[in-house]
């Protein structure tokens, strides 16, 4: 059942042609119901909201497992990082799953597998920068024509018949658009002679997020490998493109790094736009279909922490860009971070919110970020809702680096998670622990948001100690939003501390002057995966470790004080917090600490960044990202529900592993379900569907 080739295509093609000729009046495009979850974030506005209330405060803890699907067999090896959020539309649940990023269709009540589709991509799949099951897919329909869109690890846009899982032959070439082609650049890789040469197989580009389908357009961005220690300042560029939902024809392309003559090209000094790469749209794209506008969250340029080879502000790096849905023409943009140096990719779906500010209705877009700011704009004009003045920030002294002297800082709402490190943020359960932590961080450069990286030196600083950078804050799961009350609910890691140090790069490692590293730890030569790794290969040489880095923890306790992870409710009409809670059981290492015996420590939340929330009529629902073992439950994690008005926990249900993909909900035949992806550590990926017992408790 794993079709490598579409079969019976001709009949379907004939049907498709006939149906295409019937006026759209007869077969209007599908408008999802409140009981469905029709796109990755519930809707194209990025809300993760469904107004369902069968599962509520009175019964959440009674939830039981309706069905579960282990994803081990949807690929040639098990996957331990299942990040998908399924769709449920027109009575079928669809999801990406397993190490092949297979697409599965499932009966939403029983979990019975209806079909599976996978693409065998060989070396191209194996060399992909973003592998495994990805985050999801997109649905489109018109009359009886129902389609599923997803992007393979090897960067092919696939269009499937939603009823059969077979590729739609009339789309692209036999259901496939090769995204490494027709990209206004020749996708390339370094060959063995260190020449940058065209290579469709290993040329670095891919994506793990779900395509956005709006009207007649499929929008796909691009992602790359982690950008901490790239081989080169040169890389492929992550342009965003729109395709015709029926034919796969490219409708538009947006150059996230402008070409010569285009707006923004002069923000790349010394011709650096020519060779700098990355700058993709790897997260979810949001669309306002009524306005005909798409909102593109753009990531960092090459490389994450050193920008000496790309002097200038670097548009559209770390910029929210609004484009015309049908043409890709830029309507407005706002660069959140000038000359990015902190890996503050715009990492999640922008949220569309129709709010009321000072009595006036405003069509707004709210962007959660790694740096804990919720940036809010009028989504028609791009004007900030509240002042966002350019404020002076520290200018560093890394040789060759170019610094922006200012950054825009939102005045409202306040930052909802830590985005800098100060002594006041350090562990303070006891004065002795605070003292030890102070000694440990003395080796680092500290400062508020936008404190730049330093060169790592053995005598110090080892680097800049940061929070709200590479991990965030809010990472790819993003936030959620209740359109009835105008309140956003956003999870954030409040303790994901990251030292950013730079070391000079040996030429054989990278042509960048500096890459991420720690003084005293020798930078290693990067070889191809598996090279020199066979059974009879020479053993690695014996080397003395530098030993200057030590784990940033105090007696196994996190070096920063709680809360370690939070959910914040923010009133978007006012730009003010409604409530903020620690999300997640206190970690075992804290709860069982001998040092803290006898102390009354409120729930701390957990140090984890990949938690997505779900909002229903009355609840905010989110699982835990870490395993705990408590008196109340065996080794596992809890899916928790909070009263969305107050933040008070009203129920919890056990999961065998941490939440690794954001929860979704739907209703079929009068029953509400919640589906969540769990995995991590030794537990391979599994989708679990919860529902209420039919017979009551």
């Amino acid at each position, binding site marked *: 059942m794993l079709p490598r080739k579409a079969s019976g295509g001709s009949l379907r093609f004939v049907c498709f042609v006939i149906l295409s000729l019937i006026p759209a009046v007869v077969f209007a495009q599908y408008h999802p119901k409140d009981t469905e979850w029709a796109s990755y974030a519930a809707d194209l506005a990025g809300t993760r909201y469904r107004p369902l209330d069968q599962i509520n405060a009175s019964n959440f803890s009674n939830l039981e497992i309706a069905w579960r699907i282990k994803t081990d067999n949807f690929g040639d*090896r*098990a*996957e*331990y*990082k299942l990040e998908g959020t399924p769709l449920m539309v027109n009575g079928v649940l669809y999801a990406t799953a397993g190490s092949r990023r297979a697409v599965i269709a499932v009966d939403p009540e029983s979990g019975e597998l209806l079909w599976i589709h996978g693409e065998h991509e060989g070396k191209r799949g*194996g*060399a992909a920068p973003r*592998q*495994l099951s990805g985050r999801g897919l997109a649905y489109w329909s018109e009359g009886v024509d129902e389609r599923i869109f997803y992007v393979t690890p090897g960067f092919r846009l696939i269009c499937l018949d939603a009823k059969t899982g077979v590729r739609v032959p009339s789309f692209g070439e036999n259901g496939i658009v090769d995204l490494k082609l027709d990209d206004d650049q020749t996708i390339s890789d370094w060959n063995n002679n260190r020449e940058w040469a065209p290579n469709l197989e290993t040329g670095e580009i891919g994506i793990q997020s779900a395509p956005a389908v709006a009207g007649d357009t499929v929008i796909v961005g691009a992602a790359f*490998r*982690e950008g*901490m*220690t790239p081989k080169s300042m040169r890389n492929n560029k992550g342009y965003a493109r729109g395709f015709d939902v029926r034919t796969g024809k490219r409708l538009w392309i947006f150059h996230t790094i402008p070409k010569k003559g285009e707006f923004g090209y002069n923000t790349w000094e010394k011709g650096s736009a020519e060779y700098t790469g990355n700058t993709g749209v790897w997260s979810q794209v949001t669309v306002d279909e009524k306005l005909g506008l798409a909102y593109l969250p753009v990531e960092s340029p090459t490389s994450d922490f050193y920008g000496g080879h790309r002097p200038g502000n670097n548009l559209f790096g770390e910029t929210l860009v609004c484009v015309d849905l049908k043409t890709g023409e830029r309507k407005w943009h706002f660069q959140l971070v000038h000359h990015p140096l902190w*890996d503050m990719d715009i*990492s999640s779906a922008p949220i569309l919110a129709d709010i009321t500010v000072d009595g006036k209705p405003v069509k707004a877009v709210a962007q959660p970020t790694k740096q804990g700011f919720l940036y809010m704009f009028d989504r028609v004009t791009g004007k900030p809702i509240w002042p966002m003045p350019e404020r002076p920030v520290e200018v560093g002294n890394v040789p060759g680096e170019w610094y922006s002297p200012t950054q825009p800082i939102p005045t409202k709402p306040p930052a909802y998670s830590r985005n800098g490190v100060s002594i006041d943020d350090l562990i303070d359960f006891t004065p002795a622990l605070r003292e030890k932590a102070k000694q440990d961080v003395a080796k680092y450069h500290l400062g508020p948001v936008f404190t730049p990286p330093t060169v790592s030196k053995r005598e110090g600083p080892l680097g800049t100690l940061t929070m709200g950078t*590479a*991990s965030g804050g809010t*990472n*790819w799961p993003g936030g959620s939003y209740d359109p009835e009350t105008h309140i956003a609910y956003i999870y954030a890691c409040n303790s994901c501390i990251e*030292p950013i140090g730079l070391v000079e790069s040996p030429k054989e490692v990278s042509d960048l002057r500096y890459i*991420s*590293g*720690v003084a005293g*730890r*020798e*930078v*290693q*030569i*990067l070889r191809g*995966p*598996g090279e020199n*790794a*066979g059974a009879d*290969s020479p*053993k*690695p040489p014996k*080397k003395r*470790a530098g030993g200057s*880095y030590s*784990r*940033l*923890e105090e007696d*196994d306790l*996190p070096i920063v004080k709680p809360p*370690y992870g939070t959910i914040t409710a923010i009133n978007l009409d006012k730009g003010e917090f409604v409530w903020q809670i620690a999300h997640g059981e206190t970690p*075992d*290492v804290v709860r069982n*600490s*001998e040092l803290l015996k006898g102390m009354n420590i409120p729930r701390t939340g*957990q*140090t*984890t960044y990949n938690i997505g929330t779900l909002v229903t009529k009355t609840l905010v629902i989110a699982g835990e990202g*870490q*395993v*705990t*073992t408590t008196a109340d439950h065996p080794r596992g994690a809890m899916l928790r529900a909070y009263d969305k008005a107050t933040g008070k926990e009203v129920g919890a249900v056990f999961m065998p592993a*941490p939440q690794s993909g954001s929860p979704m909900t739907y209703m079929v035949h009068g029953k509400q379900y919640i589906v969540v992806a769990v995995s*991590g*550590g*030794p537990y391979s990926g599994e989708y679990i569907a919860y529902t209420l017992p039919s017979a009551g408790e």
Partner: protein
Amino acid sequence: MKRLPLLLGSALIAASLFALRAQEPAGSRSVWDGVYTEEQAKRGEPVYQKECAACHGAMMTGGESAPPLTGGGFQANWNGLTLGDLFDRIRKTMPQSKPGSLTRQQDADVLAFMLSLNKFPAGKTELYRQSEMLKEIRFETKKPAAKD
């Protein structure tokens, strides 16, 4: 049917092995008992930097696509399990672009380096290179009181 005696034999051996294991004091060693050597961790470091650091970070702090291999979240994931479970996970799925491309020795050396960065004490003997044997070593986040 010819295979039945063989199967029965295997079952008996398996049962007796199980019984043997059951007689041992459950999980007699933990990561706090010096289960790797400093030399082995040093050998693992360059392998880690070459094969793992691009995603997990030079300092094992993780990245957008890969979790940290130190700290609370990592330790919570493995607390109460065994080094065999962790070793199996590495063997089966890492490095992501070419799982199983490292030798058992290299994987064991990387594991030793991970233990050293997680501040578990080094000892006099190297880590086993077989997951079945590593299953005898418990991963415990908390230092046992008796060892203080």
